[in-house]
């Protein structure tokens, strides 16, 4: 799924474009706990979260993720936007809640990953 399709499906506002919206992504994860995100590596490229602080971007960076989606109308500050831009990460915000956002992406083909410990 292209990142531009995620934007369209979630009716999201793009806050920074990173390396662009035309990259293909194949899996995603949704969590407000960053250590849970860090526990399962399997090339998740998209992080959906309701947490807004700089550690969200650092977590995505450590995981080599390409896109962060803030749910429930959460908006990052300028500093976070600038961090994401520097890291080449696309950042967007949607009014949808976590469950709805994850479900929408899932039924449209962006499946999750089985919990595989590395």
């Amino acid at each position, binding site marked *: 799924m292209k990142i531009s399709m995620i934007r369209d499906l979630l009716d999201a506002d793009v806050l920074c474009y990173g390396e662009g919206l035309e990259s293909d992504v194949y899996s995603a994860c949704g969590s407000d*706990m960053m*250590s849970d995100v860090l*526990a399962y*590596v399997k090339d998740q490229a998209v992080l959906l979260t309701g947490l807004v602080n700089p550690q969200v971007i*650092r977590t995505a960076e*450590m*995981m080599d993720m390409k896109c962060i989606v803030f749910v429930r109308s959460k908006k990052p500050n300028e500093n976070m936007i600038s961090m994401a831009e520097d890291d080449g990460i696309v950042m967007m915000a949607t009014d949808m809640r976590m469950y709805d956002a994850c479900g929408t992406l899932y039924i449209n083909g962006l499946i999750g990953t089985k919990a595989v410990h590395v």
Partner: protein
Amino acid sequence: MSDSLVFHFDVDGDNFTSAGQASTQVKKNLRQLGLSPAIIRRVSIAMYEGEINMVIHANGGTADVVVTEEYIEIVLEDRGPGIQNVEQAMQEGFSTATDSIRSLGFGAGMGLPNMKRYTDSMSIDTVIGEGTTITMRVNLA
């Protein structure tokens, strides 16, 4: 060992916002060395979790990363309260973090288990009231 590279960082314990800066820098440095993305990811996640721990539990400390041809070693040293029960702390889901830390997205009790998971060896040297030193290695050869 003459070919080893050493990176040293001071981790600021008062600033949650800047936590992870050392790990970010190490990730960049390792990329420049041309190491594989999988190795870089393991090292940087393990170090990042450790760095976060130092900030939320121990008021900061120092981080040293040594890169040799055989391995990458990360040494995290703090002068925090020490770990009361290491075996318990290594269990997934166990955490002494406060609700305010949880609201920041950490304190799920996954930090130390994640550090062990992503490294080939990890040792914890802790003294109550004096501090903790964690040494982790990721093998390259």
